[in-house]
């Protein structure tokens, strides 16, 4: 069963037949490229929902007494505001930041970039997507079940999330739907992670050693390992929480809880902190699940448009691994104020700050990659640069929050909200945008509009800073993150104009995303045709047609002869040498 890549070139087979019929081809497809686009479109839908929710929140913070046509009773209640907070966070973290970079771009490009015809287990891949889809339907259903959406935040802290309807309107059916949705999402992500890891280990093309993998592949690979080890823990927590709610067990609910003057007698002895430990053991790796693929994309795009090899490729790959490894040991920093022992707090603090080391390695190597490069400011490059900027701005505040003494002050304030939105939210979104502008020609065979992309970048970049930088000041002043109406709090009233500024910035930035949506759908139909390799890039996805055929390389299978970022090699005629070009075929300067 062997057909070796012989010395002269790559293996050739007859091209594969495409499935006929709409359903096999586009709905229940086992083609990783179709599944990747399905994940991407799911995330695109989710991000629209998430943005609308956040704009409603921003609106309410500034005009809490406004009459809204779609709210029963006219004015938004505090519970409805908390439902917005919960659903915004849940949808954005799970169905956008986890789904788009990993499920979307990872699915589409990991097999192509390692020279494989598909994922290792294509049917399992299809199953992962459809379970994710089901999870998304469940979370949306939380809006329409009796009582509406849950109010316990994306972290679902117990006992609020464990006692049922008595703790709030959305805590009955809505919270149950939330748990079911998250559990399904965990299951789907576990199946997906399995596929990513097995594919990377066993399906690489001849010559694609680990240290020749593009950094994007490193990002997806390590992210999959994090997902594999983290999602099972949240799934277990979700099952226990569901039992607490529906079978009256006492895993997380202590005795003697009084809600609305009623003593809750069904539970005793449970530990709310146990839920926090299980949740954050998943939750901290989760933030790296969101950001590591973005780091990979940023490295990839910076190198391509600076026309320079990634500075310190090995260090970059090791730094991704180090971040992933350390990510499992720092969950306690979300719980500094939970009454944890100062010794534990100190350990978590030191470990957390040590993540600054690999993060700094990455940042300086990005700068090193740019240094002296022939930089081309194309849309993907702008977003990759934006990623680096936002990662630094958001990451630095993490060093403050990593210290228990400082965190005691800042915990549950807007400072934390500003921190994680910059470093994990917007930075990851910039990674997604960079990936979209970069790979759109490969995925859809057409180019996106450059001027529109640049306008979109500047509005989004400046807008994101206008929204989230002032938020730090509100946090330092003591602004509590989940208050529905800060204008009613005396010591915060004078900061209301800051909230107004942020809300206006949010609406402008939100509107700028319409430019992206227009550009995306317009280019899909009317964009200029893309060539095989429009960016003169070096990795395997640019060795095939745009869009790639069903088996990725049209019956021909690439061999790999060099590292992924051979730009501006001295003595070479072109300023890039692709991974698939044989050494004897490389054109030299005459």
């Amino acid at each position, binding site marked *: 069963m062997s057909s070796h890549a012989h010395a002269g070139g790559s293996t050739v087979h007859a091209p594969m037949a495409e499935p006929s019929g709409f359903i096999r081809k586009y709905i229940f497809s086992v083609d990783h490229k179709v599944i990747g686009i399905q994940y991407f479109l799911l995330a695109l839908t989710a991000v629209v929902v998430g943005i609308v929710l956040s704009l409603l929140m921003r609106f309410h913070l500034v005009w809490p007494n406004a009459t809204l046509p779609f709210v029963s009773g006219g004015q938004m209640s505090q519970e409805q505001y908390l439902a917005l907070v919960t659903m915004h966070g849940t949808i954005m973290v799970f169905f956008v930041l986890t789904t788009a970079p990993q499920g979307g771009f990872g699915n589409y490009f990991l097999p192509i970039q390692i020279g494989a015809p598909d994922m290792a287990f294509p049917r399992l891949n299809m199953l992962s997507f459809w379970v994710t889809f089901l999870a998304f339907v469940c979370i949306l259903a939380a809006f329409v079940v009796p009582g509406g959406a849950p109010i316990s935040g994306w972290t679902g802290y117990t006992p609020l999330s464990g006692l049922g309807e008595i703790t709030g309107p959305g805590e009955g059916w809505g919270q149950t739907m939330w748990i079911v949705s998250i559990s399904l999402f965990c299951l789907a992500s576990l199946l997906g992670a399995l596929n990513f890891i097995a594919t990377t280990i066993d399906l690489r093309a001849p010559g694609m050693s680990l240290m020749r993998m593009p950094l994007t592949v490193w990002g997806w690979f390590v992210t999959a390992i994090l997902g594999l080890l983290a999602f099972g*823990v949240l799934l277990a927590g979700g099952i226990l929480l569901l039992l607490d709610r529906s079978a009256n067990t006492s895993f997380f609910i202590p005795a003697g809880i009084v809600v609305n003057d009623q003593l809750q007698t069904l539970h005793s002895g*449970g530990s709310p902190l146990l839920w926090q430990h299980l949740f954050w053991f998943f939750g901290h790796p989760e933030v790296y699940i969101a950001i590591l693929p973005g780091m990979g994309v940023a490295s990839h795009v910076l190198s391509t448009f600076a026309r320079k090899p990634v500075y310190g490729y090995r260090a970059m790959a090791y730094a991704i691994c180090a971040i992933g490894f350390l990510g499992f040991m720092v969950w306690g920093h979300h719980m500094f104020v939970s009454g944890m022992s100062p010794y534990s707090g100190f350990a978590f603090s030191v470990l957390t700050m040590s993540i600054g080391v690999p993060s700094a390695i990455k940042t300086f190597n990005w700068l090193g990659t740019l240094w002296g490069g022939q930089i081309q400011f194309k849309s993907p490059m702008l977003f990759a640069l934006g990623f680096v900027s936002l990662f630094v701005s958001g990451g630095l505040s993490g060093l403050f929050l990593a210290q228990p003494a400082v965190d005691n002050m800042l915990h549950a304030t807007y400072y934390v909200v500003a921190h994680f939105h910059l470093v994990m939210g917007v930075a990851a979104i910039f990674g997604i945008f960079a990936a979209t502008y970069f790979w759109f020609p490969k995925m859809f065979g057409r180019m996106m509009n450059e001027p529109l992309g640049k306008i979109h970048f500047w509005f989004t970049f400046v807008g994101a800073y206008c929204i989230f930088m002032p938020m730090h000041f509100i946090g330092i002043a003591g602004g509590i993150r989940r208050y529905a109406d800060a204008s009613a709090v005396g010591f915060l009233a004078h900061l209301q104009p800051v909230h107004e500024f942020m809300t206006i910035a949010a609406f402008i930035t939100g509107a700028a995303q319409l430019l992206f949506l227009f550009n995306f759908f317009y280019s899909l139909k009317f964009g200029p045709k893309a060539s095989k390799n429009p960016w003169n890039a070096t990795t395997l996805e640019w060795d095939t047609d745009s869009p790639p055929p069903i088996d990725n390389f049209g019956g021909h299978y690439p061999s790999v002869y060099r590292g992924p970022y051979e730009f501006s090699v001295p003595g070479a005629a072109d300023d890039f040498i692709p991974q698939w070009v044989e050494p004897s075929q490389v054109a030299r300067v005459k």
Partner: protein
Amino acid sequence: MPGTIVTEEIELIPSDRGPGGGGFSGNGGDGGDGGDSSGATRVPQRAYITGMFIALAGILMFFMAFVSAYIVRKDMPNSAWVPLQVPRILWLNTLLLIASSFTLARAHSRFSAKDDEGFRHWWATTTFLGIFFVAGQILAWRQLAAQGIFLATNPSSSFFYVFTGAHGAHLLGGILALLYVQFRATRKVARGTAIEVVSMYWHFMDGLWVFLFLLLYLGR
């Protein structure tokens, strides 16, 4: 340098299906493949072994989350914990499951010796032992229920039902896989892989149960 080739061959054979079929002649899915008579293998067989290793790591994390919750919850101040008298039948069940690992190993070696008859015999024995184990677990549940000990009676009983339930569900999956290999996996190469992968899963579930049993028995 192509000299540093790490991976071996990835064979791709064009789909030779009739009209209406199509896509990959893929063996996607769940470890054991088959049901595809084209004889084509797109994915190297070792990917299934890798996949099972990865799946077991994920499953281990899932159970360890329960285990850590058990350890934390048991020693909480005011935990209201009443140690659970583990039903006696669990000893028998445990012996059955350990025995099934031995019969499975026997089946495996029969398969390696190309003794199909012997393989089928020992493989079926393993399946029956597995079914007896699950039946025994259900019996243990019924005994507890007869004593009035239910899921929500005490945290110790909650964990007992969670551990046995989650493990039982995983073992049922293993039984289905055993049955699948017995009756469906017919292609030579894929069958060997399926046997390998299912064996890994079964031995893991056996070891996991012994651990959980010791935890429930000694750590109560």
